[in-house]
């Protein structure tokens, strides 16, 4: 799987390259600035890009802007954005083109190597990987809305795992229940939130986020 890496801190860049290589990713290019990142993304069209939000030359949200711009030129280009902090504003901007195949994770999540690698794979496969912090904030805000308060605690758990972009199997594994039970919870959630059923993992996350977005 071909990866383009955008990260300006040498230490972290080398660490990420080593980690990705260990899991059989092919790092085709590692760049350290916004403009270089945009060029690399458009030139290589990698299977997935791993991008730091804050990059030179402005050291603000250069990486995020480059990623969004690259997705405009190459629709559906899978991008996993890493950041020292999560900001709903940025999560929305990433999700706004509704193309899926995006991720937005705190940098600390790289320390849980297995989960991090599975998040990269999920994004490369067209899914989403939203940081639990984003989901928590969305759910906390959603709490003031009526339909969400009707969810049982277990259903809320399932909803947030679902919003992170996990499959039914993964959710079942996490919560120590059967996949069938998870499917039932999801059906209940969609019923309570008045969302149409869909088989597609990516679409259902977008549906959930779109719903939360509206609140």
């Amino acid at each position, binding site marked *: 799987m071909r990866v383009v890496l955008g990260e300006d801190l040498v230490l972290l860049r080398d660490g990420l390259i080593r980690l990705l290589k260990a899991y059989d990713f092919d790092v085709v290019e590692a760049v350290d600035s916004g403009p270089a990142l945009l060029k690399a993304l458009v030139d290589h069209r990698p299977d997935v890009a791993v991008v730091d939000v*804050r990059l030179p030359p402005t050291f603000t*949200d250069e990486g995020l802007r480059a990623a969004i711009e690259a997705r405009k030129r190459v629709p559906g280009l899978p991008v996993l954005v890493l950041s020292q*902090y999560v*900001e709903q*504003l*940025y999560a929305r901007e990433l999700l706004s083109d509704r193309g899926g195949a995006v991720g937005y994770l705190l*940098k*600390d999540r790289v320390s849980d190597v297995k989960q991090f690698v599975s998040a990269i794979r999920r994004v490369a496969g067209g899914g989403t990987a939203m940081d639990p912090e984003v989901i928590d*904030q969305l759910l906390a*805000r959603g709490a003031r809305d009526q339909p969400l308060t009707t969810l049982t605690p277990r259903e809320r758990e399932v909803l947030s795992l679902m919003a992170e972009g996990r499959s039914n199997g993964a959710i079942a594994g996490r919560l120590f229940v059967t996949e069938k039970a998870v499917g039932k919870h999801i059906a209940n959630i969609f019923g309570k939130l008045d969302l149409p059923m869909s088989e597609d993992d990516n679409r259902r996350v977008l549906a959930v986020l779109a719903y939360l977005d509206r609140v």
Partner: protein
Amino acid sequence: MTDHDLVRAARTRLTQAGLGLARTPLCVAGLALIPLQLHTYPLILVTVGVPLLLVFTALSRHYTGFYRRWASRVLEVEIPAPYRTPANRGPMTRVRTIATDPATWRDLAFLPVNAIVGVLCGVLPVGFWINGVLGFVMPVIWLDRGDVEYVLVDRDTPGNFVFAPLLGIAFLVLAWWATPRAARLHATVARSMLAPGATAALTDRVRVLADSRADTVDAQAAELRRIERDLHDGAQARLVALGLNLGMAEELLARDPRAAQELLAEARQSSTQALAELRDLVRGIHPPVLADRGLDGALRALALAHPLPVEVDLDLAGRPEAPVESAAYFAVAETLTNVAKHSGATDAWVRVRHDDGRLSLMIGDNGRGGAEPSENGGLRGIERRLAAFDGTLGIASPVGGPTIVTMELPCELSSVKTSSSSGTG
């Protein structure tokens, strides 16, 4: 000018002249304050002068205060009182402040000047009006008895019977011209003597600046202490634990791989927590989104994270300087926190504009109102934060609501256009 206007203007001028004359006794009476005040100074030595001085100074300050208010009405400019405030309420401190305040002595100097100018400005216009009328009446008087002289003119020459009314017209024109000017002249003299001088204004400004600087320095020091404490108790301690766990894992790796694995997992958790704490700390110092996107993005992000729906309406043609931007952001953040905590509101709004070199921020909610700045409270903290930039805070919060908090900060915008949209968060 119609006849009606002419009559009205004449009436206004006659009233003005009458009032000017009516003021003259007060101007003269003011002279009495000079010996009253001066005599108390030697009496201070026998203590009895202390209350006397306080009473008489208060009297004279009321007296000059009256002229200050009158002159600001006439000139339509605000005339602030120039007096120094004593450092405490002790009588001796107050006497010392009064005695060393240049404004006290300028008040004293004002009294004789006011007496002269006030009498002149009060009597002259009335004199002109009377002489004007007399010019017409004089020929009639002359017909009756001839020994009355009217402004160097008498009945001796027949031509004077025509000349007197002409002279009267001249006097009326002079009176018309002089009446409003006399009042203005008096007011201008009063202002030049009673308004704070350039030195007093500067002294005042220096005091305000010294106060706000002291507040700023205090706040900065407290902030640094908080950061130091947070780092020491939080991230630093966790990193030490992390090193400890890693060291032990290294040690155990060969002998007991399972235990080593547990320790490594623990170490990873510590590092995550240390990062979370550092992240919170950074947000408290300077929110990254503020650095990235300026006030626009930062306030929208704030609204998104707020438990209530907050409508952000922001129209800025650029970015304020970083320190002002930061102060404005934290002021809004603190106010919105208050809204969430105390107001009982169901929604809130933020409006930001920049006009005439001032950044104005308004935060409103539909809560129960009754917000008041208490000492050491959040609102007072915001006020101090804004004062460092010469900014002001206003709170309109009637009991029963709604509450509107307004802030103003003088600042220039850099030319970059950030955004001009509005949205609901």
